[in-house]
């Protein structure tokens, strides 16, 4: 019987496992399906990680190494090349690997940190043929940076999120011709710094409010037809451009990978596509916690680390208290998304658990200029946070002081209002 089994050895799982160890759990197992720890960071060879957490700018593998090194100093066991096939409501974890065969392990607590997968061409139904040469940006990144193979010579990218922008630069440095980046929204989903250092630096055109309306090519991609779209995001007739390309990269969204979560009957949030979590990252299943991209897709790994440390600490607390004697559902205040807010994590806060304050992550549903974030308790405004700019591609973080979450409050609503704050 393990104190804790952590599912996924990327930045989330690494941070959770280290923290749980630090907080006193002794029998911890980290299960990772790939042959190395580090998760997706291993293929993120660009820099930009750790500015918040380490106050240094690191590349993905360097950031991962900090936590891998930390983990190696603990007694946490790791199972690499191991797939978790199932977790049950009574915290059995079914794993399979070449070296250990099929095992059914029992755990007093579980941390889910399986990360996310990429949205595919099939999921967005781009019309046309289905030739070779269509990749999600992350899959292409793996081929290039881990396996050492090029995916194409003349490349079009759909989606201006960071992964797409980063790959535009990467492919250019590897000698491919980047024809354009095509983005359906009127603004880019990626960081502005990436627009500069990935597109502008290499004179790669960015077409906002455009999308791919047809893929052509018999066995390999030959052309992509791109059209401008209107406010309804539908193609505007007469605006077609044809690109002669042999490769299309898709950077059209990430989806938390919650196959195991759903199978265990854990409550899901349709807004985040992740589990509903409490302030300490506990899910609806007592003793099962979730953190990182599997809960909601993050932009900065630094926040993944913070969130995951919280989950690891909570798992340790849960086990050391002998399972949760206080019950999970008592007096949890739901957080609602008000105007301008797509979702919040956590979705529920238990005032007696948060100490001095509760951190809330959320995303806005469109670009905002000068605005302020408002927290209301049962309709009454209780806190305001000014911001210069808000964008869907940049997850926001506010801290709700505990005194705002008095007993008797039935709901907290987070919303955005544009304009200057009146004093």
């Amino acid at each position, binding site marked *: 019987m393990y104190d804790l089994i952590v599912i996924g050895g990327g930045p989330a799982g690494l941070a959770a496992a280290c923290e749980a160890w630090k907080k006193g759990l002794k029998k911890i197992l980290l299960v990772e*399906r790939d042959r190395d720890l580090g998760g997706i960071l291993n293929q993120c060879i660009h820099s930009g990680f750790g500015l918040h957490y380490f106050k240094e700018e690191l590349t993905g593998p360097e950031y991962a190494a900090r936590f891998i090194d930390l983990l190696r100093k603990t007694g946490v066991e790791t199972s690499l*090349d191991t*797939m978790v*096939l199932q977790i049950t409501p009574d915290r059995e974890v*079914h794993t*399979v*690997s*070449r*070296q*250990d*065969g*099929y095992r*059914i392990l029992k755990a007093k607590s579980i941390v889910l940190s399986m990360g996310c*997968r*990429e949205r*595919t*061409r*099939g*999921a967005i*139904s781009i*019309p*046309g*043929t*289905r*030739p*070779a*040469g269509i990749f*999600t940006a*992350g*899959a292409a990144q*793996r*081929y*290039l940076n*881990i*396996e*050492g*193979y*090029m*995916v*194409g*010579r003349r490349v079009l990218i759909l989606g201006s999120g960071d992964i797409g922008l980063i790959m535009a630069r990467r492919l250019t440095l*590897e*000698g491919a011709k980047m024809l354009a980046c095509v983005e359906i929204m009127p603004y880019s989903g990626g960081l502005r710094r990436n627009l500069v250092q990935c597109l502008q630096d290499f004179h790669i055109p960015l077409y906002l409010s455009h999308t791919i*309306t*047809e893929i*052509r090519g*018999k*066995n*390999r991609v030959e052309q992509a037809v791109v059209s401008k779209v209107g406010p309804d995001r539908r*193609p505007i007739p007469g605006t077609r451009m044809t690109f002669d390309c*042999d490769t299309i990269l898709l950077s059209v969204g990430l989806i938390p990978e919650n*196959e195991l979560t759903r199978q265990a009957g854990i409550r899901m949030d349709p807004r985040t596509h992740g589990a509903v979590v409490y302030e300490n990252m506990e899910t609806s299943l007592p003793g099962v916690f979730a953190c990182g991209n599997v809960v909601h897709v993050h932009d900065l790994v630094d926040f993944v680390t913070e969130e995951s440390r919280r989950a690891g600490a909570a798992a340790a607390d849960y086990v050391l208290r002998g399972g949760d004697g206080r019950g999970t559902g008592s007096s949890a205040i739901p957080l609602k998304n008000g105007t301008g807010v797509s979702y919040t994590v956590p979705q529920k806060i238990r005032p007696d658990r948060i100490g001095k304050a509760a951190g809330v992550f959320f995303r806005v549903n469109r670009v905002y200029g000068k605005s302020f974030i408002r927290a209301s308790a049962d309709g009454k405004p209780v806190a305001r946070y000014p911001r210069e700019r808000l964008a869907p591609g940049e997850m926001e973080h506010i801290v709700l002081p505990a005194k705002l979450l008095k007993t008797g409050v039935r709901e907290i609503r987070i919303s955005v209002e544009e304009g200057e704050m009146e004093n």
Partner: protein
Amino acid sequence: MFDVGIIGCGIIGAAAAFELSKYRVSTLILEGENDVADGTTKANSAILHAGYDPEPGTLMAKLNVEGSFLAERICRDLDVPYRKTGSLVLAFSDRDCETVENLYRRGKQNGVPGLSVLNAEQVLGMEPNLSLKVRGALYAPTAAVVSPWEYCLALAETAVENGAVLRRDARVTKIERIPEGYRITASGRPYEARYVINAAGVHAEEVHNLAAAPSFHIIPMRGEYFILDKSEGRTVSRVIFQCPTERGKGVLVAPTVGGNLIVGPNAEQLDRGAGENTATTASGMAFVAKTAKESVPGLDFRQTIRSFAGVRAASDRDDFIIEQAKGAPGFLDLAGIRSPGLTAAPAIAETAIGILEESGLKREKKTDFRARRRRIRFADLSPEEKARLVKEDPSYGRVICRCETVTEGEILACMKTPIPPCSVDGVKRRVNAGMGRCQGGFCGPRVVEILSRELHIPPDRVLKDKDGSYILTGKTRGGGGNV
């Protein structure tokens, strides 16, 4: 010199080969692509129809019903995924109700068992997610869903195991009459056979015209489909049809053998010769989505994991073309095999062999015919069975496809079958790796690595599907031995 040369290894060619391989008859199969089941057979509704739809008295009607019986047994014998879900043809109007009654009568005439006409209450009781506008339906309990490519593979593998010779990448370019039969030139090589079966699908007209005077036209009909995530797989339990109207046959919604939902098709006539145009279109997909919602209003297309199109070989005749070509004795056309072709396949094969026999083909039943195909499906095993399997063979412990839980052991096993895969999609068709919601995002690089290793080719020579569909274009900079 072979007794029979079959041109095309889709479901019809494979069924013919399977049937022939039961007899002491030497059989050659010439497949133009690098794999079997790579044309219409892999891109259709995957439905084994009950048989009320074809006109009574036609070959379609007779062979549909026969094929429907034969399929169940063959799928069981050859371990082909098959589920007898039953089907409903929904009626939404007076006209539809009349159509349903007609189909019922037709079905009975065709010998379809178990048919009944249900009222709205009964229909909604069976299928609560249907539109409340439904007035009634024809219920056919014998309709089934199948894996069409695995069906074709199983038939072809069994044929090869029993002595049939399969040549892939064998595109037929010339057919000459010789004293004992025919000389077929395929990809530059000559093959000789006493009898020839033309099962070339969308290319059946071109192949026919190599041997005989033109006698039919193949009219390619393209149909587009959506596959929805397994989360939607229980939206309906049966195949849900709509009544044919002047717009066409209507759009179906059905569970797949794998637990997904398939929605489609539309029906678009393509230009002659455009049989390989399997592109999907914005308008086609929009039509399918809109029309399907008439049956199942709550369909959530945000759960789409894939869309595709398949081209059926309809013809300018009203029925299956199962006949010897005029002026080419011993050359048998199995052409224009549109719906219910998949269902009728084994019956078409039996009929075809009968015609050849009348034509002089001597057939003696083999005593050592083996039809014992079995496939290990890791995902379907119990935990105890999984544990035992991995202990015996650790390659079953390495999960390659996360979404469908497919292991390296299964991939290695399929490389040892009589018709091993030569592409990533070939692996997909055999073991399901890449069929899930991530559509090969996770398993893709791993399957490429395994194929590269097992086929002894560098990763940038691994194909996605057909010849020329290379996935990678060389090593990254400084990769050593840059291609």
